[in-house]
Structure formats: C-alpha cells, structure tokens
C-alpha cells in the first residue's frame, strides 16, 4: 500500500469534506436545523466552478454554457451560487421545523440531482463535465498534489477560523440562546427566524467553495459524485466527531475519509472481492454510525474533560 499517497488523499478529501461537515455543524448544532440535502449545495459549487472555467461547448458536448473564466473568479462565483441556491431553497423550507425541514431539504437535493442527471444542457447529463481545470501546477520542487492538499487544508482552516470568530461573538451567543430556549430568546428581542435564515445562508458559502475544490480534485463534475450518500457520509462524520465540538467534527471527518480510502486502496485480487469489500465498507459505516449515536463516546469524553477542568 502506498502510504504517502494515501495520506495526501486523506488530507485533501478530509479537508474538503471537513468544510462541509463544519457548515452542517453550524446549521445543526447552533441553528437547530436538520439539513438532509447538504450534497445539493456541494454539487452547486462543483458544477458552477466547472461551468465557469470550461471552454464553450464544441463537438459532442451537449452543455450550453462554458465561460472560460480564470479559476479564482469561478471559485468566488461557486460560493455565491451556493448562497443563491440556499436563499431559493431556504425560502419555502425554513418555515418548517425538525423532520419536515429534513425531508424537504432531502427532497430539494433529490430534485436537483435528477435535474443534473436529465438536463443535458447543464452539464452533459449522466456523462458529466470532464477535464475540469486544476489551477495549481508544480510549485517549484513541490509536487502538484501536495500544493493541492495544502490549498484544501487552507480552506478548512479559514472556514474554521471564520466560524469560530462568528460563534464567540455576541451573534454566536444569541444563536445559542435561540437554540436552547427560543421563547426566552424571542422575549429578549432576538429575531429567531431571521437569524436562523442567516445561518442557513452563511453556512452555504463554504460548502460552495468546497464543491469547487472537489471539482478541481476529481477534475470531474458528474451526477454520480453527488448522491444522497454524500449527505449521509457528512452526517456520519458529524455524529462521529460529536456535534457542537468543532475540532471533533474535523477529526471525525478525517477518520471517516481515512477508513474509506484504506478500503479503496486495498489491492483486491478479484472484482467480486472488491465488490464485497465495498459492501462491507457500507455495513461497517452504518454499524459505526449506530454505535456512536447510541453510546456517544466522544460527547461523554468532552463532558468529562469539562468537569475535570
């Protein structure tokens, strides 16, 4: 097994998905919103980046738009697109709470997925957009993949810092108050509904950026990369790390990605054994998920730490 390669991949993917998990954590642990369609915002970022960087359509291409913009403008547009998408989907759904919100966000993600799959004019339908631009070449003696992993990690750190700044501010305390006791917070003059909507919008932006970086990493924007499975994986990572704990969330994501990459990188002899390994990966992921939710070991550890301090 090629360990350095594995570690670089884990760092890159872990950072990308870490950003998504952090945003989900902000929505769920602080805003009290269950977003079961987080993959759609991720996909919006990836497709926006691909569409804005690729050359105009030619030959067999079925997509209608390709702007050929420089990569950094496309990344910014990807974040904005996720914001707009959050505004559009948030408008009808955020009046709903709890499981209704979970189901409608899930529904929106599925609708978006089926749109990408069927509407060839957006991104070639099932084929997807290939050869998405990767901005960083080799950086002197440093190979491209290391530069790229560094860029992804930088995005993660930036997101972490911004979110942490936000949460220790008076704004963050108001959010906590709304989550803990909405009636009391309303009585204290905190606009609960409005602030929840703001959190929903703010947290969509980094997900859009992460989507753009993911499209660069895979050099591909294809519907099969953005299924409900991504949503579940991110949720599992969130639960694994322990909600409300920012560092736990990042560690949980890294651990999950590490586990998946090991299974993927394992040299299998036959197609059938690789197939079985893939399903075993599914089963184990599910079992870990169930066990963590039941015993909540990380949360218990965090409480113990706090008590002993």
């Amino acid at each position, binding site marked *: 097994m090629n360990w350095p390669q594995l570690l670089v991949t884990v760092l890159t993917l872990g950072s990308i998905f870490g950003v998504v998990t952090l945003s989900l954590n902000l929505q769920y642990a602080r805003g009290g919103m*269950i977003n079961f369609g987080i993959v759609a915002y991720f996909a919006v970022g990836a497709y926006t980046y691909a569409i804005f960087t690729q050359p105009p359509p030619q030959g067999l291409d079925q997509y209608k738009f390709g702007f050929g913009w420089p990569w950094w403008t496309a990344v910014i547009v990807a974040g904005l697109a996720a914001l707009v998408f959050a505004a559009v989907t948030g408008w*009808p759904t955020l*009046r*709903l709470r*709890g*499981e*209704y919100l*979970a*189901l*409608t966000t*899930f*529904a*929106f993600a*599925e*609708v978006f997925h*089926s*749109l990408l*799959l*069927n509407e060839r004019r957006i991104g070639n339908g099932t084929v997807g957009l290939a050869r998405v631009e990767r901005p960083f070449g080799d950086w002197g003696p440093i190979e491209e993949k290391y530069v790229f992993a560094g860029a992804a990690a930088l995005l993660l750190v930036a997101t972490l810092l911004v979110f942490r700044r936000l949460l220790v501010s008076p704004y963050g305390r108001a959010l906590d108050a709304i989550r803990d006791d909405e009636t009391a917070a309303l009585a204290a003059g905190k606009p609960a509904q409005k602030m929840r909507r703001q959190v929903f919008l703010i947290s969509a932006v980094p997900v859009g950026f992460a989507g753009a970086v993911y499209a660069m990493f895979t050099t591909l924007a294809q519907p099969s990369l953005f299924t409900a499975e991504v949503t*579940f994986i991110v*949720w*599992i990572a969130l*639960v694994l790390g322990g909600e409300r704990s920012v560092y736990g969330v990042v560690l949980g994501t890294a651990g999950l990605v590490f586990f998946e990459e090991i299974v993927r990188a394992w040299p299998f002899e036959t197609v*059938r054994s690789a*197939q*079985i390994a*893939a*399903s*075993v*990966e*599914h*089963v184990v*992921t*599910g*079992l*870990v*998920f*169930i066990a963590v*939710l*039941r015993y909540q070991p990380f949360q218990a550890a965090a409480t113990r730490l706090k008590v002993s301090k």
Partner: protein
Amino acid sequence: MLLLQFFVSGVATGCFLILATIGFSLTRRVEGFLNIAHAELLGVSAFTTWWLNSHHGWHVLAAAVAAIAFTALVGLGIARVVYDPIRHRGPAVLLITSTGVAFVIGGALHGLIGTGIRTLDIGLAHRYEAFGLRVTSHQLIVVGLAAAVSVSLALFLNRTRTGLAIRAMAVNPELAASRGVNLSATSRATWLLSSGLAGLAGVMLAVLATLTTDLAFAQILQILAVAILAGLGSLYAVILSGLLVGVAMDVSAYWIPAGYRPLVAFAVVIVVLLFRPAGLAGTRDA
C-alpha cells in the same frame, strides 16, 4: 387516449406507493420517528422472494408468504436491538440512526446478492384490453392488494383489541399504559405489522420490476414524497396522496421525459407544503 393510458398506469403506481408508504406512516404515527430503513425492508423482502423462488424453486406465493414473515421478523429484531435503547434521545437521533440501519441493510444486500438484474420466475403479465386501454394482470393485483390492505388495516385499527391499543399508544403512551395497554406487546405488534407491510410491498416490487440491489433505496424517495404529502403519521390520507403522486408521476410522462418522474413527485410535495405546511391531512399546530 394515451393520456388516459398513462392515468391508468398511474393508478397502479399509486397503489404500489400506498402499499410501500402505509407501513412507514404507521411507524411514524406509533413510534414517533421517520424510519428511513423502511425502504430497505422492501429490498429484504423482494430478494428473499427472488432467492426462494428462482434458486430453490418455490412457488411464488409460498416464497412471498415466507418473505413477508421473514421481513416482519427482521423489522422487529432491528427495532428491539437498535431503536428501543435510544428511544429517549428523541426523533431526530432515531431518524439519523435509521439511515445507519439503511446503510447496513443496503450494504449487506449488495454483498450477498451482487450487481446485475434479476427477475422472478413467473410468467409474463397477462394483458387485458377494455375501451382501448391496456391493463396488465400484475397491475390489477397491485390495485386489488392496495384496496384489500387499506380496508383490512382500517378494520384492524378500529375493531380489534390490538388495533385499538396501537391507536391509544400512538396518541398518549402513558395514558394508554395506565388504562391497561401492554406497551411493549403493542409496540411489538406495530413493528410486525409495519415491517410485514413493507414485506408485502417488497413482494410487489419483485413482481412489477426487475430487481437491482439499489432499487430499494430508490423507493425511499417516493415513500417520503407520499408520506409528507399525506401529513406525517396520518394513515387514510396516504391513500389519497399515494394515488395523487402515482398519477402525477405517470401522467407527467405525457409531456416531459420519464427520467423526471421522481422530480415530479417532489415538485408536487413542495407545492403542497407551500400552502399546507403540515401536509394534506395536517392540522395547523401539528
């Protein structure tokens, strides 16, 4: 004429959706959470039927009965081992846990069965024609079963002791317990019933469609659409909303490509939720 034909097949689709959703809604009503793994139980049943039928040469009816019983027991087992110990953590944790369960069942099915398409060893569907409209015998079976299940479920919940206990428990567990309802026995009955209904829907899935291991997961989307539309937890509204979603999906194929069917289902749901945030049967404070 073609439009009418789509409408007829939409009714059949809707009846399948009723069968698939009613167990899901029953769980939501009595146990109080959304069991995402419900759709995977359809897969368990469908593949058990297939395995008994085409590997062991059982008659399809015998295979179906065995599969339904097996699925009911699997559902009960999962509830006892996984859901019961974390019930006090609330519906959100249960909902998220059930996606974990869906992963486990889905992965296990995939590992045991493998990729590829499979069909039951039964004859091709008989076709009937009336007034220029075509109906297959399989479609008629689905419609008949949906009607039979709806009626017998209503009778069961209104006339039998267990049925009344289930309804009492759904409304107020403590009060029901103080009036002599055995809660754990009632919960057991509910899980057997809802998983058995998933089993029945799974058999129909095996009859109607060619089986792949990711087929079951695809059903959860439509089940959710129907359940939200009906208002979570309401049972009679499932009949109406199942038909509505089924007809909307199939009739839409008249104008737009069939690949958009799930999209149509959710478009209906989103429009309805905009005007009635708690679904068709929902009350304002639900």
